[in-house]
C-alpha cells in the first residue's frame, strides 16, 4: 500500500518536473531560433535537388525554427505558376528556383528581391570567393545586380562510353570535329548501337541542346548588338551538323527525347556519347537504373577548332519573391545563406543534389570519393560560359521559336537555312 502510494507521488513530482523543464526549454528554443513560427514556401524545379531540398527541410527547422515547404514542379508548370504568382502578387511562394535563362525576365519585371546589398553585406558569411565567378555572375546576376543567388550549378560535360571507345581504339574527342567523326564511327544500327544522342523533342529540350552544340561549333544566338541573329552563317552550319548527327549517329527515337529520354538511352547503353549536365552523371553508376555501370567516362565538352575554349554552365539560383513582406524576405535570405553555406551545401551535394559550385567542393575528399568527375567540372567552371543561351527577357519566346525551327529540321520538314530565316523573322518581332 505504502509503496504504491509513494510510487504515485513520485510520478506526480516527475510529471510536474518534466512540464517545468519542457516549458523552460521551449522558451529557450524560441529565443535561440529567430525564425520560429515562420513558414517558407519554396517552388522547386523537379531536378535532383528538389527532393534533396525537401529532405533538408527538417534540418533547416532545427537550425532556425522556420518551416520549409517545398513544392516540386516540372519546368513548364514551375514557370507558369511562379510567373502567375508574381504577376498576380499572390505571394504564393517565398522562394523560387530560377533557371539561369529566366534572369532577364526577373530583372526586367522586378519579380524578385534585388539581393545585391545583402550579398555585399554578408559576403564574408557567404564565402563568396569560394564560389566560381562565372556561377555568381550567370546564375545570380543580371546587369550586375543579384536577381537570385546561385545554389545549383551544372557543368556541361561530355559523357562517353569508355568501353566502346577503347574497343574502337579511340580516345575521348578533343574537339567537335572529332566528336562528329567518332559519333559516326561508333554507330551500328544493326547492333542497336549509336554514337551520339541529344534532345530532339519539340520545345525547350531541343532548343537548349542545340544552343549548347551551336555555341561549341562557334555559333551565337544574339549578334554583337544584342539583337537576335538566329540565321547567321555559323548557326546555319551548326544546325546542319546537328541534323547530320541525328540522321547518321543518333537512335531513331532521339527526335522524341527530352533530357529524361536522352539520359535513359545513355544509361541503357544505346548511345556512346552525349553532352549533358553534370547533374546526371551519378546515375550512370547506379545499377538499379543503369546498364553501363563502370563503363562510362566524363570529359570536358569538345569545342570546334578555332572557337574559344569555353564550356557551358547552367543551373539554378534561388530568388526571393519581391511581393512578400520584409520578415519573410529576411527569412528567405536566411535560408539561402544557410543552404549555400559550405557545410550545408556539401551535405546537399552528398545527398545527391549534383549542384557543385564551390572551389572547396572540387577537392573535398569525401565528395571526390563519391563523384570522381569533379575535376572535369572544376575545369569547366574555370572556363565557364553562362551566356550561350541569352538570358534576356525574351528568352522563353526565342527558345520556343528555335525549338520549333530545330525540331522541324530534325524531322526533315525544313532545311536549316530556311528554318532559321523564318525563326529570325519571328524573333525580330519580339524586339
Amino acid at each position: 500500500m505504502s509503496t504504491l502510494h509513494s510510487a504515485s507521488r513520485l510520478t506526480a513530482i516527475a510529471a510536474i518536473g518534466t512540464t517545468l523543464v519542457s516549458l523552460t526549454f521551449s522558451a529557450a528554443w524560441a529565443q535561440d531560433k529567430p525564425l520560429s513560427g515562420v513558414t517558407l514556401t519554396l517552388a522547386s524545379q523537379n531536378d535532383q535537388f528538389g527532393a534533396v531540398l525537401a529532405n533538408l527541410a527538417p534540418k533547416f527547422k532545427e537550425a532556425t525554427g522556420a518551416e520549409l515547404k517545398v513544392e516540386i514542379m516540372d519546368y513548364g508548370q514551375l514557370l507558369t505558376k511562379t510567373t502567375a504568382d508574381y504577376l498576380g502578387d499572390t505571394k504564393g511562394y517565398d522562394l523560387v528556383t530560377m533557371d539561369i535563362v529566366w534572369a532577364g525576365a526577373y530583372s526586367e519585371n522586378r519579380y524578385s528581391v534585388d539581393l545585391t546589398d545583402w550579398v555585399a553585406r554578408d559576403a564574408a558569411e557567404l564565402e563568396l570567393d569560394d564560389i566560381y565567378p562565372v556561377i555568381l555572375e550567370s546564375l545570380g546576376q543580371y546587369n550586375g545586380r543579384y536577381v537570385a543567388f546561385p545554389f545549383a550549378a551544372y557543368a556541361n560535360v561530355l559523357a562517353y562510353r569508355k568501353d566502346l571507345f577503347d574497343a574502337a581504339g579511340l580516345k575521348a574527342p578533343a574537339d567537335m570535329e572529332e566528336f562528329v567523326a567518332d559519333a559516326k564511327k561508333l554507330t551500328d544500327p544493326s547492333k542497336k548501337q549509336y554514337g551520339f544522342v541529344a534532345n530532339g523533342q519539340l520545345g525547350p529540350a531541343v532548343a537548349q541542346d542545340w544552343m549548347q552544340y551551336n555555341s561549341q561549333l562557334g555559333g551565337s544566338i544574339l549578334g554583337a548588338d544584342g539583337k537576335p541573329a538566329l540565321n547567321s552563317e555559323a548557326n546555319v552550319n551548326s544546325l546542319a551538323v546537328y541534323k547530320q548527327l541525328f540522321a547518321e549517329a543518333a537512335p531513331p527515337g532521339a527526335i522524341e527525347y527530352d533530357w529524361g529520354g536522352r539520359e535513359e538511352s545513355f544509361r541503357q547503353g544505346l548511345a556512346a556519347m552525349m553532352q549533358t549536365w553534370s547533374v546526371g552523371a551519378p546515375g550512370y553508376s547506379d545499377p538499379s537504373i543503369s546498364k553501363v555501370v563502370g563503363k562510362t567516362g566524363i570529359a570536358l565538352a569538345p569545342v570546334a577548332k578555332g572557337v574559344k575554349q569555353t564550356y557551358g554552365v547552367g543551373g539554378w539560383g534561388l530568388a526571393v519573391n519581391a511581393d512578400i513582406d520584409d520578415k519573410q524576405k529576411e527569412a528567405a535570405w536566411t535560408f539561402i545563406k544557410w543552404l549555400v553555406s559550405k557545410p550545408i551545401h556539401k551535405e546537399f551535394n552528398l545527398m545527391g543534389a549534383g549542384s557543385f559550385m564551390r572551389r572547396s567542393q572540387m577537392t573535398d575528399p569525401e565528395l571526390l570519393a563519391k563523384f570522381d568527375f569533379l575535376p572535369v567540372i572544376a575545369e569547366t567552371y574555370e572556363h565557364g560560359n553562362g551566356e550561350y543561351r541569352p538570358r534576356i527577357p525574351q528568352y522563353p519566346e526565342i527558345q520556343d521559336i528555335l525549338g520549333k525551327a530545330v525540331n522541324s529540321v530534325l524531322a526533315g520538314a525544313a532545311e536549316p537555312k530556311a528554318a532559321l530565316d523564318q525563326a529570325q523573322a519571328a524573333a525580330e518581332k519580339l524586339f
Partner: protein
Amino acid sequence: MTALSDACILAASEDARIWTMARKYTMTDTELPVAVPRQILRSRRDNSFGYFVRRRYFLLFLALPAFVYVMIVGVGPLARGAWYSLFDYNLQRPARTRFAGLDNYITVFTDQSSLLAIYNTFLFTIVGVTVQLILGFGIALLLWRDDRFNRTCLAFLLIPATITPLVVGLIFKGLLGADYGMVGHLLANAGIGPEGGLLSDGRTALWVLIAIDCWEWTPLMALILLAGLKALPVDVLEAARADGATATQRFARIILPLMLPSVFLALILRVMDAFRVFDTVFVTTGGGPGDATQTLMLLAVKEGLSFFNIGYASAIGNVTIAFIAIMASILVLAVRRTDVRING
C-alpha cells in the same frame, strides 16, 4: 438571359393584375358561405398572389442559381478575356500594352502557326469524330441486344474513355516510341513508317493523334448511340421486320432516321471536346514535329500560360469558341433539315 428576363416581365405584369384581383376578392371573402373548407381560406390569406404566378416564380427560382452562377463565374471572366483580346497585352511586359483593335484576330488568320493549328484542329475534329461515329455505331449495333454478356463488354469497353487523357497520351507515347516502345519497335523492325516512330514524322503524327482520339472516345460514342438504340420504339422495328425489310434496309430506312437525335447528341458532344483537344497532344508531340500537330488549344495554352501573351491567347480562345459555335449550329441545322425531310 432573355428567357429569364422574359419570365420576369411576365411575372411582373401578372403581379399587377393579381393585385387588383386580390383586392376585389378580399371584399367577397367576407360573404363566403360557411361550408368553405378552412384550408382554402387559409391559403387565400397566405398567398398574396395566385398560384400560376408563383409557379413561374418557382421555376425562375429553380433556374436562377445556376444561371447567376454561370454568369458570374463563367461569363464574367470570358467577357474580360474578350476585352483583353483587343489589346497587345503581355502580362510580362505590361509597359508595352497597347490597344490593337482586331490585330490579334488578324494574326490568328494570317500567322502560319495558327493557320496550321486551325487546319489541324478541323482535320482532327472532322476525321476523328466521323471515324468515331462510324465505329461507335457499329459497336452500338453489336451491343444492342440487352444481355449480361453485352453489358459486361460495354463496361470494359468504356475503360479508355475513363482514363485520364494525360495518361492516354503517355500510354501511346510509350507504346509508339521507336527505341523502347512495344509497337514502335515492331513497326521499326518491319520497316513500316518513319524511322523515328510514327509520332516523330509530320506526315504521320496527326493521323496517329486522330487514332488515339478514336481509341479513347469511340466507346463513349458507342454508349450514347446504344442509349439511343435502346430508346427506339420496338413496335416500329418489329413492323419493319414483319414487312420483310432486310437488315440493311431496316438500318438505312428505320434505325438511322430514328437515331438522328442520338447521333446529333453524340456528334455535338464529341465535336465540342475534339475541337478543344489538348491533353493527349500536349504529352505526345507537344504540337510537333515543327508545327505539324499544332492545335488551337495547344497554341492558346502556350501563348497564354507560358508566354502570358493574354491578348493573343484570348483571341485564339475566342476564335475557338466561334468555330465550335459555328459547327454546333451547322449540326443543329443539318439535323433539323434531315428531321423535316424524314418526319415531314
